[in-house]
Every structure is written in C-alpha cells, then in structure tokens.
C-alpha cells in the first residue's frame, strides 16, 4: 500500500498554517523569568547538577551536532545551550551562589527569548553531543529541562504550541480523534483486514498516530497484518490510541501527563499485558521511560516499540518472514529516541537481517547515527526549516555513500523529514517504513 503524496502535501500545507492557530501565551517579563526559574528550581537533581558542574568548554560537542556542523555557526554548539540553566544553577542553587550573584548577571526575559531558537529550532535532543563529551554530560537532558522552563514562560514556538494546545484542550493531534480512528479502521476493513476496535479486554493495546492513520497507512496496515498473523489478542482503542505526545515535545508537563495517562488508563482498563508503540521516535520514551513516573508507580504492563516487538516475535519463532530479498539494497536510519536514548539498536537490525535484504550501514550508525534534523517537534517548527534543510544534508550525503536504493525508517517523524528532504533535493531514494516492509514479507 503506497503512501499518498497528495496527503503529504496537505500535511505540509497544514503545518505551514499552525503558527496562526496558536493561542497566545503572553506574560509580563518578570513573570516569564519567575516561571522559568521555578521549573529549573524544581527540576535540577544530582544528575543535572553534576552535568552543569563538569563542562570544561572543550567545544568537542560542536563536532557532533548536526545543526552546528551543517551551518558552521558556533552559536549552535550544544554546550552553549546549557549556559542558561547553568547560570541559574550557579546563582540560585549552587554551593557558591553568593559569589556567583556578585559575578554574573541574572536571567532576563530577553535571555529566555534568545534561548528559544537554541533549544527548540536548533536542537532535536538527539543526544549525539553527549556521546563525544569527555565528561559524559547528558546535554540533551539539559536542553529538555530548558525547553520545559521556556514552555512555562510561554515561549514554545507558535507552530509547536498550536499542536500542544490542541492535544491539551481536545486530546487530538492535527484534528485526529476517535472518529479518525474509526474511519482508518473502516478503511482497513474494506481492504479485507479484520481490525479489532474498542475490545473491552485484550492482551495488547496497539497505539497508532495521526500520521499513520492519515498518511503512512502502509505502516498501519502492516501492523494490523502482523498482529493478525501472529494470532494475538489485540485491539485499537478510540479512547487511547495516540502515541504522539506534543506535551513532551513542547515541554509542557501537564499536557504530557494528560496524553500519557490516556494511554495508561486505557491499557489498565482493558487489562493489557503490553502496549505497542508504533513507529514514532518520541512516543516510545514518553511511555517507556516517563510513563511510570507520570503514573506514580511502576506500570502494570510492558511497553514495546514495534521494532523491538518484532524482534521478540522473531526470536520466539512466532514471526516468519520471507527472506528472498537480496536484490533490495537498503540502509537504516536509527531513530535517536529508540537507539541512542533507549538502547534499541540490535532489534531493528535483527528484523532487517531476517528479511534477507542487501543491508548497508550508514557511515555513522547505531549510537553514532546523525539525527535527520526533524526530531523532538522540530519538523513542525516553521522557523527551523532552513536549519532542518542544512542538517539533512549530512544525512543525504551519508545515505548516498551506502549506494542503497531504499532508506528504512522506524519513526514517522524521521520519515516525514526524509520525505521532505527527498522532495527538496529531487532524491531518487525510496523512504520506506520498516514495519511496512515486514508487513509485505510475512510468510
């Protein structure tokens, strides 16, 4: 089932309008600063204090950042993005705050505005900078907290804010609600698939996303085919279907909690043994690594991202794939939030191997994979378009070096960004979903 590029164009058009739909979040300057500081004060724990205290400003992180490398502009150096939070820590929480208050100036509303571009437009929190840091500093974690502080100060970029506000107010993303799920399920049923919807009890709650339902229907269809072939007790639910969490991406804690709780409550209500996260980068860590903290106790179910789940089924001998695909030359782009952030590196490769394709690794892959430039909500931020395009150039060159015809994706946002990059560059590479390729090769 090929994706409809007209729908892709509609998506791109919709995104261009997002900014005008955002509700204003204006506060007086002093209040902005106080709100941001309150987030820093609450959020900085030993891990982040340790990170903030350790930077020696060697500048190595500049060599690992796709935005800094592709633009050559030193202002995008990851270590610089930590400076706002570091100044707060030194002046208000650090052991020598009395001294730093004399020697440094306080955070201003202007600083917060300046940092908007640094932590939203020019950072996908991909974490590659952390891999080169000799101090092992988790710079992406610092940026995430700084995003939360800016969000509290009302400084989420308008485009991203519009989607976050929609998810907070209506529980929908790009207008996709329960009716969208019903329509998508109906469409799949007309294609001959048995699709369980709103079962009261099921072992597996399978999530999807607005992008899968409206654009990447090949991913949706493949997921359905795989679960049916495996003979599992599974369901989609209209009251807990969306994997995307724009609260997390924007840094708005209550929207993140609301979106996560919707899924958690649904999974508990149906007695799910596991929740399956679709091909979506941030959706996995949102539930896997933050879900229990949001719920307040360990989750009573497992969380798997689809590539991880496919590998488990392969290992158990339950998933059988056709492996006569040696004529297909593919490479694989690791989603940062699955690989570098969550350690899911071998699993998708095991699936790719089982498909028997001619697999060629990117020059930088796995833990060292370059981000495509569209993650962490950057894909929807209009002002970030030039930065995204520049950063994508790295990926473009790397993929070309492999000689592959197809680029396998395990994340919808990455796929969107690759499609845009392919379109902008008249690229002849096919941007393919891993789960869709598996769905096409079921034995």
């Amino acid at each position, binding site marked *: 089932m090929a994706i409809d590029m007209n729908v892709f164009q509609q998506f791109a058009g919709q995104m261009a309008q997002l900014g005008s739909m955002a509700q204003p979040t204006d506060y007086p300057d002093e209040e902005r600063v106080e709100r941001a500081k309150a987030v820093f004060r609450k959020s*900085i*724990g*030993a*891990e982040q*204090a*340790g*990170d903030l*205290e*350790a*930077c*020696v*400003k*060697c*500048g*190595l992180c*500049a*060599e*690992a950042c796709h935005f*800094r490398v592709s633009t050559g502009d*030193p*202002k995008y*150096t990851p*270590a*610089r993005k930590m400076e706002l939070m570091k100044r707060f820590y030194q002046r208000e*929480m*650090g*052991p*020598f705050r009395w*001294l730093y208050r004399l020697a440094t100036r306080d955070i201003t509303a202007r600083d917060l505005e300046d940092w908007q571009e640094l932590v939203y437009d020019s950072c996908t929190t991909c974490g590659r900078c*952390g*891999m*080169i*840091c*000799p*101090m*092992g*500093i*988790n710079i992406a974690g610092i940026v995430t907290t700084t995003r939360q502080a800016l969000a509290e100060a009302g400084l989420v970029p308008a485009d991203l804010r519009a989607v976050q506000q929609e998810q907070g107010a209506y529980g929908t993303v790009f207008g996709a609600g329960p009716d969208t799920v019903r329509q998508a399920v109906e469409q799949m049923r007309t294609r001959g698939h048995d699709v369980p919807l709103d079962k009261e009890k099921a072992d597996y709650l399978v999530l999807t996303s607005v992008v899968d339902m409206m654009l990447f229907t090949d991913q949706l269809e493949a997921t359905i085919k795989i679960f049916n072939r495996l003979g599992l007790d599974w369901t989609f639910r209209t009251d807990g279907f969306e994997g995307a969490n724009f609260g997390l991406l924007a840094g708005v804690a209550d929207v993140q909690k609301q979106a996560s709780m919707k899924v958690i409550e649904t999974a508990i209500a149906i007695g799910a043994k596991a929740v399956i996260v679709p091909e979506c980068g941030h959706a996995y860590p949102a539930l*896997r*690594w*933050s*879900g*229990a*903290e949001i*719920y*307040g*106790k*360990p*989750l009573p179910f*497992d969380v798997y991202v689809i590539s991880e789940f496919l590998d488990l089924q392969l290992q158990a001998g339950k998933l059988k794939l056709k492996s006569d695909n040696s004529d297909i030359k593919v490479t694989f782009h690791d989603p940062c939030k699955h690989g*570098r*952030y*969550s*350690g*899911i590196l071998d699993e998708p490769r095991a699936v790719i191997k089982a498909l028997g394709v001619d697999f060629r690794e990117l020059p*930088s892959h796995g*833990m*060292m994979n370059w981000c495509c430039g569209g993650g962490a909500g950057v894909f929807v931020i209009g002002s970030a378009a030039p930065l995204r395009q520049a950063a994508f150039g790295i990926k473009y060159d790397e993929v070309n070096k492999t000689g592959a015809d197809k680029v396998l994706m395990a994340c919808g946002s990455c796929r969107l960004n690759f499609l845009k990059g392919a379109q902008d560059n008249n690229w002849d590479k096919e941007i393919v979903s891993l789960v869709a390729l598996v769905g096409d090769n079921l034995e």
Partner: protein
Amino acid sequence: MIGDFIDGPLWYFSAAVFVIGVAWRLFAILRLRGRKKVLSKPRNTTGGGALATILRRFVPYREFATVSRGRVIAGYVFHLGLFALLFFAAPHMEFIRDRITGFGWTPLPYWGFIVASQLAFFGLLLLIIYRLMNPVTRLLSDAGDYVSSILVFVVMLTGCMALLQASEALRLLHLFLAEVLLIYFPFSALMHTFTFVTSRGFSGAVFYRRGVNY
C-alpha cells in the same frame, strides 16, 4: 617574614579552602540525589553502568577519533605531564611527605622532570591557543576559563624556574602562586578534576538502565 607567612599560615589556609571547597561543591551535587523517583522498568538490571562510563570516557569513541584527535592528545599530554610533575617531582614529593602524608616515594629523576615539564607546557599551550583561536571555544569560554589556564601556567613556570635556579625567592613565589591556585580551585572549572566522576557516573547509570552503553 613574608616567606614565613607563605610557608606557614597561607599554606594551611589555602589547603583548608581547597579541601573544604571541593568537599562542599561535591556535596552540593550529591545532596540533590533522589529528587526524581525512577519507576520505569529497567532494560538492564545488572549494575556497573556508572563505572563503565567513568572508564570508557577516558578514550573517545572511534567515530569521533578524527575530529577530537588534536584536543585529546593535547589534553593527555598536558594532564599526564602535570600529574607527573605534581606527584613525582622531587621537591613536591618531599613537600607532600613532610607536610601531608609523612611518607615518601621514589621521585622522578632530573631528566624525567624535564620531560614531564616540557610535555605539560606543550600540552597546556596548545590547549590555550586552541581556546583562543577556535570560534567555538572562544564563544564558550569566559574569564574564569582563562584565569584557570593562566594560573596553572604560571605555577608551572615558577616551579621550573625555582628548581632550575635553586632560589629561595623563586620557591616562595612558586608556593605562593600554588596557594592562590588552591584557593581558586573550588570556585572554578578546575573542579572537573573531581566532577568528571559525577557527570560520567550519573549519565552512565541513567543510560545503562535504559540499555545504553553510554
């Protein structure tokens, strides 16, 4: 009289500031432990992630070897040279034996001292030049970073001069500058001597439980 002050009260004062300051700064990090409850089910349940990262980050990942080669080599040359000088230069060993530990060890021969000091100077100069010339490090650096580098440089310089010329005035100047460095140390980025353990260790532990060999 000023010599007695540098040899006596100022030494004890600077050593106390150093020890208390370093301890206080590390305590300030550790006291924030446990602010965030971790409830998610780990992918790795065995321990050792913190230690593994503390050790692993002494060497850059292969993928970054080319881009980091110059700075890593300069850094190692400087740090190893400095370490050798600090703990194995004969006057330092005697100072530590007489004033701190009560026991000594085999010091570097004179030629070893010369080699170590050349390496330390060469590495430090390279790092300072890089900091000044590279647009990224120039943007990141503040006055404190330059003060740290210059202080270390002049302490090393006066140390070499004192040893070569066997002058009491130079020895006192060297000791005085070393005492200034000790007082400055806990307030500066020189604290990375200790904080590399906390940053690497915490990150290593956090990522390891997610299944990532950070």
